[in-house]
């Protein structure tokens, strides 16, 4: 039994309306695939090269209309599904996660939570290297680093649109009364955009890194959200995507939260 076989069964039995998985794309890449007919299930692949967080599709109107769907789920996808459930964007009964090798059916939030408990999370080597480099920089160097990186941003919003947690129909970027962030992708517009994005994901980011992966100009923007998420973890001891019960670090508090900078 593999993901293809499992998908075929699910579709044939009418358990799900579609399987969102991966197929082979250009130049050896894997890309998202929507399988709605059992006979197309053999397009599916599920291996190490499958990187995208498919949970991002669960909040699209087109997908919501489908009804119950199965999703080939890597651990980050599972985290995103839980977080989306916590934020009332995905209903438990509308999603079936296919985890592990693609045949492990996780049909409930509880099943996903239990499965995740067995999955470790590790930072990719490349990210570690950049973070390491940044940690050795002084403030001015970090400023220069991010200014150089962000100067490449064209505000295509690939990062936002790839992010499973950026499901808001009306993004802060779309607000014009007031115009919180300049539309233009000049230095200020870019800095503010990425600042807002990172802050809005603080306590919500499942650290899949899809934003960085999506960036056409290669800005390691996922490190900004990672930084916020890490800071949430270090200071408040929690991580997004651990549970389908809402526990948003920035709308809760402890009277004894510790900081060192408030005078």
């Amino acid at each position: 039994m593999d993901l293809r076989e499992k998908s075929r069964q699910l579709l044939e039995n009418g358990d799900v309306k579609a399987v969102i998985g991966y197929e082979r794309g250009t130049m050896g890449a894997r890309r998202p695939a929507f399988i709605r007919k059992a006979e197309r299930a053999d397009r599916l692949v599920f291996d190490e090269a499958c990187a995208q967080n498919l949970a991002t599709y669960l909040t699209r109107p087109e997908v919501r209309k489908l009804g119950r769907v199965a999703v080939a789920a890597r651990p980050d996808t599972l985290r995103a599904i839980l977080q989306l459930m916590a934020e009332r964007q995905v209903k438990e009964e509308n999603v079936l996660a296919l985890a592990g090798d693609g045949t492990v059916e996780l049909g409930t939030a509880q099943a996903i939570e239990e499965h995740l408990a067995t999955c470790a999370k590790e930072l990719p080597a490349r990210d570690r290297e950049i973070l390491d480099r940044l940690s050795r920089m002084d403030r001015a160097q970090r400023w220069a680093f991010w200014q150089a990186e962000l100067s490449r941003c064209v505000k295509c919003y690939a990062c936002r649109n790839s992010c499973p947690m950026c499901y808001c129909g009306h993004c802060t970027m779309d607000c014009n009364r007031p115009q919180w962030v300049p539309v233009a992708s000049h230095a200020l517009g870019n800095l503010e955009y990425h600042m807002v994005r990172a802050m809005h994901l603080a306590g919500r980011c499942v650290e899949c890194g899809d934003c960085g992966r999506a960036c056409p100009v290669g800005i390691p923007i996922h490190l900004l959200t990672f930084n916020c998420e890490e800071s949430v973890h270090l200071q408040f001891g929690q991580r997004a995507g651990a549970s389908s019960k809402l526990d948003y670090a920035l709308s809760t508090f402890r009277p004894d939260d510790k900081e060192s900078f408030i005078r």
Partner: protein
Amino acid sequence: MADNFFLPQASLDTLFAALTGDGRRILAPTDRDGRTELNPVTSPGDVAKDYLQTILSAKEAAFPKVERLMSFSTGAGSVDLKDAEPSAVPTVLFGIRPCEASGFKALDAVFNWDTRDRFFNARMEALAVIGIGCTRKDDACFCTSVGGGPGSTSGSDILLTPVEGGFLAEVLTEKGKAMAALAPEAFKADPGLEKKVVEVPVAFDQPGLTKRLKDRFEDGIWVEQSLRCVGCGACAFVCPTCVCFDIVEEADAKGGHRLRTWDSCGGHMFTLHASGHNPRETQAQRWRQRVYHKFSYYPERYDMLGCVGCGKCTRACPVDMNLQEHLAEAAQA
């Protein structure tokens, strides 16, 4: 007709020095932080080695991602307008690929089809292109399917094609001649060099596609193809021919600027009315718009394609919306 020369590798220094000496900025693909990007360079050594293409296209040389259209100052009951002059620094685009070089025509078609866009034109006037023909390609390339080619001279003022020890230089236009004239010693007589470029197979029948699109508008294919599209603007922003733009205001109580920025028909905000009505509400409609605009509306309106087959969109797409593949599918019955 083109004048052909041999440009030895070593003579590039001479050419660069001459161009710089003439007060021109040279923009060329560079390898910065592991990414191939257009940046100002002063010597051939600054130019990236073995690059396929830059991530963003060369269009930014004439159509920057943010540019000022005008400024104004406001007082009690008064407004003063200040026209913006495009800062059209004489620029040589060196080393861009023939596909991108030919992209400027598609931009020009829109910017000047009716009224003339001063900002684009001023930059274009100040721009000269020294393209380099392709000796490499990847699976995203499909220039030959859209009327171009790895050795196409279209859009270049001088086209260089790598040969042993240097380049075959085709000096194509007056601008090209003027550049060559700045460094006559660099351009040696052509010993009868063979112009050898990479072979890019034709992936689909473009005239057939354009014809096929006429009756495919309501086809389910657009929904099917676009299911995985996340609706970002990466494809449009890296595209050498995508010309859609936004005009935005940045101001305070005293005054401000009106800026032009790139925009993309792929985003849901693009056509959204203030009332909430959206003429292109679904991603499928927006994806279809992108395909039709380039392969149906452009030919109809401007008698050319809005695509040069560079494949940048395919490379940039976070979900591999491979254009060539989807076009090939759409071209089929």
